[in-house]
């Protein structure tokens, strides 16, 4: 059995104070100093930390929002002196897609490399827009294996990038008669995409590339000075031909096929990727590109995970599913590789996008969030970055990205284990392992209440 793929994480504390979610206010004057004080029982030592830091440090009020919100102390204080408060600054983070909880959990994963677990349970709704309208089927979770998915049980998360032959042919000597097309395999179904709006310095890009190398994956790069990096996928513009690259990506254009053919004539072992904006023509254009011999198609939604330039924007999951099903109908889905990107913010989004038909995903903004980006978009407006992301320290950035992907990988293993799937390539298009809220609603409630009104 091959060695298990394992991402080695190690704690990497943040450089800047994270914006915490909850704070506790206590009415000290009414305290009866009883012997079963709930402050001593805090599982996260929040009160002890407060005391210690008041003694030792000068940054004394920074811990005000370090409460994990388990509510143990609030519930148990016999005199009801403690009150739970939410930090308004926290609520202002991000936007409706990149919610404060997503940003905060990404910070946690990048810091610890662990799967985030909410101390206060899950108080939210069970469905919502976008990725939240897909529920993964965890039916196999009732029968966990003895030593679990992190023990002897092997779950493969390796994916292939490149054109795959649909059948093999052998010559009379029994040897393979066809020359297998170039193919690259990566141990996790994720590559690193270009940042949609962040300003990326060469220093930052180098850190992303080094993290990708450590993980065994690849990263898109648009800075020509970094094209020579081992795991760079050059983002090619004009007539430039990346001679050394194993993979290269071209933005879609009317003459993209001609340019790729020209590049392949000098570098035949190269795998060509076409980055296609997910718009209303994405299905027809993808079929056209595949027919013209393109190996890999990168379907790129906007950074909120919606199709671009459409009257009625669709979510990336719907758009990818349409493209996937179009290839299935044509009978050539297995030949090409589909990479989906844009709006992928959590590990579950990666699994759900794969369920909807992508072979792998491209990750962009979460990498910046791992480096403590607050999605304030100051950089877009030319304002100074509150965390000075462009001058990020190399080792810190590499480890934070590795930690994030380690946590994502573990979550993918957990999800696949619970779904009873042992191979991520089998998860592709496996909609039987998911329930779509729209379908459930249509099947269960439409016969009773009629069709939902369009808003």
């Amino acid at each position, binding site marked *: 059995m091959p060695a298990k793929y394992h991402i080695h994480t190690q704690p990497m504390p943040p450089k800047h104070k994270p914006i915490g979610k909850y*704070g506790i206010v206590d009415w000290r004057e009414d305290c009866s100093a009883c012997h079963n004080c709930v402050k001593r029982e805090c599982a996260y030592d929040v009160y002890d930390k407060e005391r210690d830091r*008041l003694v030792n440090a000068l*940054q004394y009020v*920074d811990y005000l929002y370090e409460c994990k919100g388990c509510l143990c102390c609030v519930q148990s204080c016999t005199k009801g002196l403690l009150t739970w408060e939410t930090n308004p600054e926290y609520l202002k983070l991000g936007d409706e897609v990149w919610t404060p909880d997503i940003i905060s959990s990404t910070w946690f994963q990048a810091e610890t490399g662990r799967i985030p677990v909410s101390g206060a349970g899950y108080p939210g709704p069970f469905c919502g827009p976008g990725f939240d309208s897909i529920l993964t089927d965890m039916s196999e979770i009732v029968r966990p294996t003895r030593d679990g998915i992190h023990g002897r049980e092997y779950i493969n998360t390796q994916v292939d990038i490149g054109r795959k032959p649909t059948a093999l042919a052998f010559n009379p000597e029994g040897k393979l008669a066809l020359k297998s097309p170039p193919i690259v395999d990566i141990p996790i179904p994720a590559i690193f995409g270009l940042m949609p709006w962040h300003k990326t310095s060469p220093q930052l890009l180098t850190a992303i590339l080094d993290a990708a190398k450590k993980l065994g994956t690849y990263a898109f790069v648009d800075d020509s000075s970094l094209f020579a990096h081992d795991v760079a996928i050059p983002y090619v513009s004009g007539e430039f031909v990346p001679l050394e690259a194993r993979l290269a990506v071209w933005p879609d254009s009317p003459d993209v096929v001609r340019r790729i053919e020209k590049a392949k004539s000098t570098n035949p072992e190269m795998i060509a990727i076409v980055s296609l904006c997910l718009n209303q023509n994405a299905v027809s254009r993808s079929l056209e590109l595949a027919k013209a011999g393109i190996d890999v198609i990168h379907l790129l939604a906007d950074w909120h995970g919606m199709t671009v330039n459409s009257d009625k924007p669709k979510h990336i999951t719907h758009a990818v599913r349409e493209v996937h099903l179009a290839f299935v109908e044509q009978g050539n889905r297995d030949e090409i590789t589909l990479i989906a990107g844009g709006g992928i913010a959590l590990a579950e989004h990666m699994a759900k996008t794969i369920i909807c038909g992508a072979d792998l995903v491209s990750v962009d903004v979460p990498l910046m969030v791992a480096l403590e980006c607050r999605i304030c978009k100051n950089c877009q407006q030319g304002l100074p970055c509150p965390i000075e992301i462009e001058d990020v320290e190399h080792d810190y950035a590499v480890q934070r990205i590795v930690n994030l992907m380690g946590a994502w990988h573990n979550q993918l293993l957990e999800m696949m284990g619970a779904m009873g799937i042992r191979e991520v390539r089998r998860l592709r298009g496996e909609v039987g392992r998911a329930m779509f809220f729209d379908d459930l609603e249509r099947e269960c409630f439409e016969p009773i209440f009629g069709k939902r009104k369009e808003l």
Partner: protein
Amino acid sequence: MNESRKNCDIRVFYCRNLAEDFGILPMLLPMERQNNVALEPVPCSGKIDPRYLLKAFEAGSRFVCILSCPKGECKLIEGNLRAARRVQAVKELLAEAGFNPESLRLIIPESKDAKHIEAAVELILGCLNKK
């Protein structure tokens, strides 16, 4: 943490609820641009603990100010009243230790009217300019 906040002459603790509900943040932010002023938002002025205030002085602050919600407007009902009692207690401690108790100030706007809130912020600015 912002390095410039470590050794500040002046610390202003303000209730976040006040800042949120009455929109005083734009008025306070110009203060933070002054190098010697640190703005410390707290979840409620009732969170202010005598230890925070004493620690602020111990850390080198010459003037500490607390901005709380108007009377009767505290989200936690009595946070601002408790803050007032704690400030009084710390003032007494400061006097006992030989420091000027006026270097600690609690500012409570008279009401939630914009003019009273603005007056409270002006009062802080006035105190800062004097120091």
